[in-house]
């Protein structure tokens, strides 16, 4: 598939706008999924995913063909989404990082063991519950968890998408995984 996409990108660079249609339809679900899992709202996710594709198109000349296109595209999508999350952030947030700590949020201060009422768990559809828990993660953990477990990217790829060192990716995955463990252990 990568070679087909490469060919399409060459055509787009030459000015063939129609070739972009295949690129969009090939990546639309992946990009939409990243945006949706990170922003948590279908309408905004659609908006962000669309914006990501338009930016990719207008900046296609800057894309280095020796690189992987998906990495570049996901980077545009995650950056846009993270920007949006920052803008809409209310002034007080449970997952705001506590000053002077790396990755410690108010969530970690709340007793996670407090069991959810049985009926609540049952009433909440499991899927929705998990989705909510992912959204409750601080954005920087959310992005690595989404890319790692929903898009199944390698650690190296995540590092390239987010432009952070692989070591940082690992730390964030570990912390995100621990937080989710606390939140999901009773499910």
């Amino acid at each position, binding site marked *: 598939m990568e070679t087909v996409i490469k060919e399409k990108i060459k055509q787009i660079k030459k000015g063939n706008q129609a070739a972009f249609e295949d690129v969009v339809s090939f990546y*639309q679900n992946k990009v939409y999924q990243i945006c949706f899992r990170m922003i948590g709202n279908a309408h905004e996710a659609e908006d962000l*995913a*669309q914006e990501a594709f338009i930016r990719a*198109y207008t900046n296609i000349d800057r894309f280095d063909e020796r690189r992987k296109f998906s990495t570049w595209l996901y980077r545009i999508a995650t950056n846009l989404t993270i920007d949006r999350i920052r803008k809409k952030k209310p002034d007080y947030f449970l997952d705001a990082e506590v000053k002077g700590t790396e990755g410690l949020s108010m969530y970690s201060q709340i007793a996670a063991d407090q069991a959810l009422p049985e009926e609540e768990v049952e009433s909440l559809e499991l899927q929705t519950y998990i989705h909510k828990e992912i959204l409750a993660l601080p954005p920087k953990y959310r992005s690595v968890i989404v890319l790692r477990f929903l898009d199944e990217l390698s650690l190296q790829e995540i590092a390239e998408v987010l432009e952070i060192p692989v070591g940082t990716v690992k730390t964030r995955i*570990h912390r995100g*995984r621990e937080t989710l*463990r606390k939140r*999901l252990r009773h499910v």
Partner: protein
Amino acid sequence: MNCKEEAIALMHKYLDDHLTQTEEKKLRMHLQACQECQTHFHELKRTISLVKSSSPVSAPQGFTSNVMANLPKQKKRNHYTKWFRNHPFFTAAAVFFLMMFGGIFSAWTEDQQVTVSKQENLVIKNQVVIVPEDVTVNGDLVVRNGDLRIEGAVNGDVTIINGDLLKQDSREDSPLDGEKYMAYVSGEVNEVNQVFEWVWYHIKNTWESVFSLAKE
């Protein structure tokens, strides 16, 4: 083994597929012995499978056509800018030549007024610069946009840009006519009338000044 740090770090390493064989052995041994860590490990694995189990979402209907409808119209100039971006060397050379020739041409067409490099004792009449009989110009003489008539003498080179060196028509029959008037000029006589000559003259001048600088 320290449960809190070492064992949990190993668990995460395992989940990242980065565990070496010895580390794996170590972890397995510990898990068999420690109930608490076993639960922790189980919970972690379960968390991942729960997260992975959430069904993949797909983009809404008509997403692709929406994107395509919202793409900016292609711009023609894109082609040129792209070319320039891909050929920085040519771009630089083109800009250089444009500026160089632009400068020379504008200097050429600039002012049509008669100018002389040495004004002393020279007579300017109807676009003609005259070196009077009793005058000797010491040094090079440059006349722009006008003719030159030498009745006196010039001790140096003469350059006439956009003009002619006039023969001394008043003394047609005098022995000083023809090549002989050259006797009054001790150096070379240059006449520049065409743009290309003008360019050549400029280049020559530049070289000369470069070499004279080098000599100093």
